């Protein structure tokens, strides 16, 4: 975070207002699926609802509260050529200054790759000029439209071409589709990189996990149900399902749609306080943890173990509350967690 602030000061523009929030730019060709993915991740849409979305006109600004002290200042930029030209000319400084993250969406089905790459290059050039320290993520989207056997080859080939055009930036690529959990994987990692005190959270989570002898501990963000942080034991790491976080997010999110229909409360509202599952081969609970998070714990079977672990998690809750408290200002982020113990 610090070096990003430096960068804002070093950029050619002098910001008149005091410290502005870093932007997250969401860009890509028109119709590539930017607004669809934004709605799914942050507005609790299901994939088929996105058919209702129209074209984004100009820039759609939204700030997404995340983990209390992290607000994403999300700029969903309409991708039609006229807008693109506008961003690159009149609004160049306005759009590309003070950018923390650029998420660029490529449509795998695109007919005119040359043109896409050309636009991408211009965007990268503008970004290099105003926010040279920002990070770049590439989402190769609509992967579901490609025959499964060819997915990997086509994806690798596409990523190699894009990498060449990225100047000094080192883009992190993802293959995504709104129809499966790959979208969650990409966004969870992007968010993961943005959370400032993540290593502390992760460390505490690990301590907690060891203490209660869990197989796996996951920390979810409340509204998007993305995995913010996770810890797994040596045994938990042997789990053959490698995309389990994304699938878990997806399952819970789908169920939230049902509960919201049942209770008549809005989808964004908190839907459940506790879920427990005891089976002969494992047990699991998901509890409302801090204001902005849910905690999922996967344990070996056993009633006593289960109850003890749950009790311990409720005790640990207070300490985690400090790590994620909306009251704390970004200034003393580093100091807040020093006093906490798991």
């Amino acid at each position: 975070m610090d070096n990003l602030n430096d960068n804002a000061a070093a950029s050619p523009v002098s910001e008149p207002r005091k410290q502005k929030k870093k932007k997250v730019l969401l860009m890509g060709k028109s119709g590539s699926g930017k607004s669809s993915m934004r709605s799914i991740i942050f507005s609790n849409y299901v994939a088929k609802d996105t058919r209702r979305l129209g074209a984004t006109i100009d820039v759609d600004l939204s700030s997404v509260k995340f983990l209390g002290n992290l607000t994403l200042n999300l700029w969903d930029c309409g991708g039609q050529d006229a807008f693109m030209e506008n961003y690159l000319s009149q609004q160049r400084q306005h759009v590309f200054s003070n950018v923390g993250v650029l998420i660029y969406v490529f449509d795998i089905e695109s007919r005119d790759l040359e043109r896409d790459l050309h636009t991408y290059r211009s965007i990268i050039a503008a970004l290099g000029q105003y926010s040279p320290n920002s990070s770049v993520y590439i989402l190769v989207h609509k992967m579901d439209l490609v025959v499964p056997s060819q997915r990997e080859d086509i994806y690798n080939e596409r990523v190699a071409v894009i990498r060449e055009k990225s100047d000094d930036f080192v883009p992190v690529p993802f293959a995504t589709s709104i129809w499966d959990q790959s979208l969650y994987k990409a966004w969870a990692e992007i968010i993961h990189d943005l959370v400032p005190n993540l290593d502390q959270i992760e460390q505490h989570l690990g301590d907690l996990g060891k203490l209660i002898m869990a197989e796996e501990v996951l920390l979810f963000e409340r509204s998007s149900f993305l995995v913010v942080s996770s810890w797994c034991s040596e045994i938990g790491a042997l789990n053959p399902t490698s995309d389990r976080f994304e699938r878990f997010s997806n399952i819970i999110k789908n169920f939230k749609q049902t509960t919201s229909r049942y209770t008549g409360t809005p989808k964004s509202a908190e839907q459940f306080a506790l879920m427990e599952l005891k089976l002969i081969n494992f047990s699991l609970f998901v509890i409302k943890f801090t204001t902005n998070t849910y905690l999922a714990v996967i344990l070996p079977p056993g009633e006593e173990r289960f109850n003890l672990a749950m009790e311990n998690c409720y005790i640990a809750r207070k300490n985690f509350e400090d790590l994620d408290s909306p009251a704390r200002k970004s200034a003393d982020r580093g100091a807040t967690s020093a006093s906490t113990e798991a």
Partner: protein
Amino acid sequence: MPESLLETGRRRTKLDRSYNGPPRQGPVRHISPAQLNLERIHEQNRANVQRVDPAKALAPAPGAAARGKPRLLLMGQRRSGKSSISSVVFHKMPPNETLFLESTARIQKDSMHSFMDFQVWDFPGQVDFMDPSFDLDAIFGEIGALIWVIDAQDEYVEAINRLNSTILNLQSSGYSAINIEVFIHKVDGLSDDYKLDIQRDVTQRIQDELSDHGFENAPINFHLTSIYNHSIFEAFSKVIQKLIPHLPYLEALLNNCCQKSGFEKAYLFDVLSKIYIATDSSPVDMPSYEICSDYIDVIVDVSEIYGWNRPAEYISFLEGAPWNKKLEDQVACKDAESCIVLTDGRRPIILREVNKYLALVAVVREGAYSKMPDIIENVNVTVGGLLEIFEITRRPKTRA
């Protein structure tokens, strides 16, 4: 050990949840071996009937695999949605993929192995089975129910005429005991008023026609259905319930449990098809059915992720000090149990596995979480009762 669906979660092997069943071709298909099934009950009933009145004996169906299982016949005009219904309900095909189903050219026989074994016969719409060249007994003998599918978004007069002639034919050929279920299908997208109008119209036309032929009070039931929501599952639940001879006892047990534990609604689900085979006597409301059936999905899906086989040395570590107990003895209940507490009104929803195929799912009254231990105890007793009923209904066969 963990063989039930709830524990292993192996239902869909494809990650994107798309249709992964075998191609819909060929004759009878086996899904898994069954323990508790209606085959025995049916055989037993058949034997009883035979003893009382040898003339009325139901003939076993032809073919080894088809013998002794109650049969659901899906009939109706072509393109009314019969194959879509059986694919969605019995093969977990996503509804929007049924668009690509081809027209059924010959009778599709599917065998379901679940809490009870039954067969689903999907008939081609264009063939008239009342033609004397068909062996009526092979089709209608030993039938559980005849499901007649009517496309509500199409001209249905012709369909009703055919249904009427089928019913009259069945009456005259001595199959009058068959339950006739009319699915007024594809009602998604129609307004509620319009749906009821259609239902009234269809009912009227059928009853009038039948009473003109001197056949009053035909045993016909009507259901409004669509594959795009849970209504089709509900309709099937009602159809299947009629085939369960010990249903009143199951219902009585559930009623008792609901009353004592403060449940708003309890369902006994078949986990695989998500058809409920019994429920308590309070009226069924769609939302509670939906949430209960989706909750089963959550558990099956989560189990699929975390229900992998742990290494043996880890298990022995868990069974060692300080516990010094077998894992089976460490758990409070050997079957799957789960509950989720909704924020709204702190309303718990509980799920308890009954046996390999069945699960009890209930919506509990608001704020009852603090009474959870009592509730769990009540549920345990109820599940014990349910299992006993199944055991009793199974036993005579082994003696015979």
